[in-house]
């Protein structure tokens, strides 16, 4: 057997292996997501409740569709087992986060604070009459059901 031939073969093999030894996965990895989640319908009571909570008028078909889409996107993860797992509220849970001393360090900034308000009177912010829930104007009859829904 030709010695040269063998070494060249080994070299070739090494090159090949070099080319394919890479640690990058060759194909996409299977995901944990649940792909077939049924599309959920949000009823009009919930939409009205959300409008009141969000204080945003968004009552149109497109808005509802986007909401339903967001919910079904979130539904993909509900099947994953999280028994005995504590919720992670902050990534700094193991850090000592100091509190400051209870001392006044700022003040005399009344003009600063009022500067960005559109309407002020004397030294006050101004708001229209309070204690009137949203929607009272247009749908009084809906309020009863809303209150039942509000949990």
């Amino acid at each position, binding site marked *: 057997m030709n010695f040269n031939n063998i070494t060249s073969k080994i070299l070739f093999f090494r090159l090949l292996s*070099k080319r394919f030894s*890479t*640690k*990058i*996965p060759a*194909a996409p*990895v299977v*995901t*944990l*997501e649940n792909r077939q989640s049924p599309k959920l319908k*949000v009823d009009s009571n*919930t939409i009205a*409740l*959300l409008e009141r*909570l*969000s*204080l*945003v*008028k*968004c009552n149109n078909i*497109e*808005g509802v569709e*986007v*909401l339903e*889409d*967001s919910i079904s*996107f*979130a539904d*993909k*993860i*509900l099947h*994953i087992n*999280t028994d005995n*797992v*504590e*919720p*992670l*509220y*902050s*990534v*700094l849970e193991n850090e000592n*986060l*100091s*509190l400051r001393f209870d001392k006044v360090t700022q003040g005399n*900034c009344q003009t600063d*604070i009022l*500067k*960005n*308000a*559109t*309407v002020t009177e004397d030294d006050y*912010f101004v708001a*229209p*009459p*309070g*204690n*009137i829930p*949203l929607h*009272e104007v247009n749908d009084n009859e809906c309020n009863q059901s809303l209150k039942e829904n509000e*949990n």
Partner: protein
Amino acid sequence: MNKLTSFTIKEVHKAYRDKLLTPTSFVDLCLQKAKQTSELNAFVNVTEDVAENHAIDSEKRFYIDKKIKPLDGVTIAIKDNFCTKNITTTCASEMLRNFVPTYDATVYAKLIKSGACLIGKSNLDEFAMGSGTVDSIFGPTRNSWGYNGETDWRIAGGSSGGSAVAVSSGACIAAIGSDTGGSTRNPAALCGVVGVKPTYGLVSRYGLIPLVNSMDVPGILARNIDDATEILNCIAGPDNLDSTTIKRKFQPIEIQENFDLSNLRIGIPSEYHCEGMNEEVIDTWRWVADLLENEKALLKTVSLPHTSVSIAVYSILNQCEVASNMARYDGLEFGLRTNEDYSTEELYASSRSQGFNNVVRSRIFAGNYFLLTRNYEKYFLKALKLRRLIANDFNFVFNGDNRVDLLLTPTTLSDAPLYGDFVSKHNRDQCALQDYCTQPANMAGIPAVSIPIRLSKSNLPLSLQLMGPNMSEQLLLNVAKRIETTTTTEILSKLNISIDTLPQKCQEILKLAACNQLEVDIDQLDPVAISLQQSLQISRKLNEEYEILKLKQKNTELQTQIDRNRKFLDGLRNELNCSRNSLASQTPNPENIQDHIKQMKQKVASYEESCKKATMKFSKLSVPDSVLPKALQAQLSVLNTLHEEAVAWRQRADDVVFTRDARDTFNRLRR
């Protein structure tokens, strides 16, 4: 030709020292660049006056005080969701269009304290909700790469797209973005610049208008790792105004030349090869992994099993925190306020409906849905638990038995998409694709850096991401720097080399060959020689053009300098005129000063005269007793008694004379 797009902090400081540039001239150039590239829409607001003032301060420190700060004369852009005192901060939203903060974000304050010059506030998706910088009230930002005018352009990535384009187009050396799910690394990757997301809590969030408090971090965009590190060194560290900063002293990061990669363990998380990932991105990933292996780093495949669900968990948490964070915008204390006055809640609702775009509104909506009492546990707590599992994946990979030091992944699934293709998808789908590789780092709070590697077939930048455990910026940035230098030299070695860099001998041989070829007749020339001739001509032409361009550039620079000088001279002249005028209107007028002096002299003479008279009069005045000294008073009293005695004696003498006369007359009569 145009060095503006390649200047680094080190180079610009050297140019200042050599007086090739001064901070004011450089800031002018950057401002000019920002205006020239206004079509890209990188800036919401170019802060010309502020930049010039900062530049003048820098110039003073550089040449007069000789106390040079680390970022003196370094031009920066700040994403428009960081508060800047007395400079409008809009978040690219109708809600804050006229909002003028009354305080500075810590990041901005620290940069200015280090000498940086603010060129402008950069564009973003409304309230940083997006991954393309396409949802801004000021219009989308356009990527400078592959830009072919109005109709054919790529997105900049987002949400800090304005900052990334500002850096890549040369309007500033570095920029600040914010990173909630990849908002700094994503545009950095698509625009071919470095994007750093520090550890959560390393850099203060004070003054950053919050999106998701538990994930937001200020991010850095720069042209290379050295600059990004320099900026990070200036802005990192504990801050009393942000309780979520890590309260340990920050050790400045040092970048070493030729950092040793041997025995460094780098993990390749297999889950990051997801469906929809571009083949070119995988190739780049493979190429760099092999390069690192050649540098003797240990590469191994690792698994982060919850990666694929991370994006859904992120979307739940994002929407929940958005719903809570956006509650502050009611139009009363600041922000947009409509004319609705039926009730407070009606005013809130109408202001918020007008002030927010549909992306923000739909996130608030969905967030409130997940937070409803009946859904709280099902969605919100579930997401928080999954967040722990995702963070635990990282913990295990970095601290477990088979641990690695860093992770190498792609930053985005492809190069920059065309605007038309991108906006055809809904915002959530855009983010789900764009943020796939970047948001896990935010979920776990770990640091990450996006490094531009090479160009795709369509000549757009491709980037990779390095992630490390908490507070591992020192290692992370050193390895990133190593990748940066290795890939650059690797790419350079494949390019044609200019003759000047060849050894002397080679140059001589080439010259000889070229001369010989020149002497040969045309019909004897082989195709190689012909192409040589052609390239010679082309190179001559190019050289000439280059010289012309250089001269033109110099000319414009000189022109700006001349203009500045003229302005300065005009100012001086004005001042001179002003002072002359004021002098003329004054009395005495300098022209008749002699007369004035004469008058004055006369006056003085008359004064002297009256003075003399006065002294004369004074001397004639009797002095009251009380003023006289005591000795004198005693003498005076003695004098008085003597006078009295003298009078008495005289009377007596008179008496004696009288009696003598009387006696004489009496005697005569008797006789």
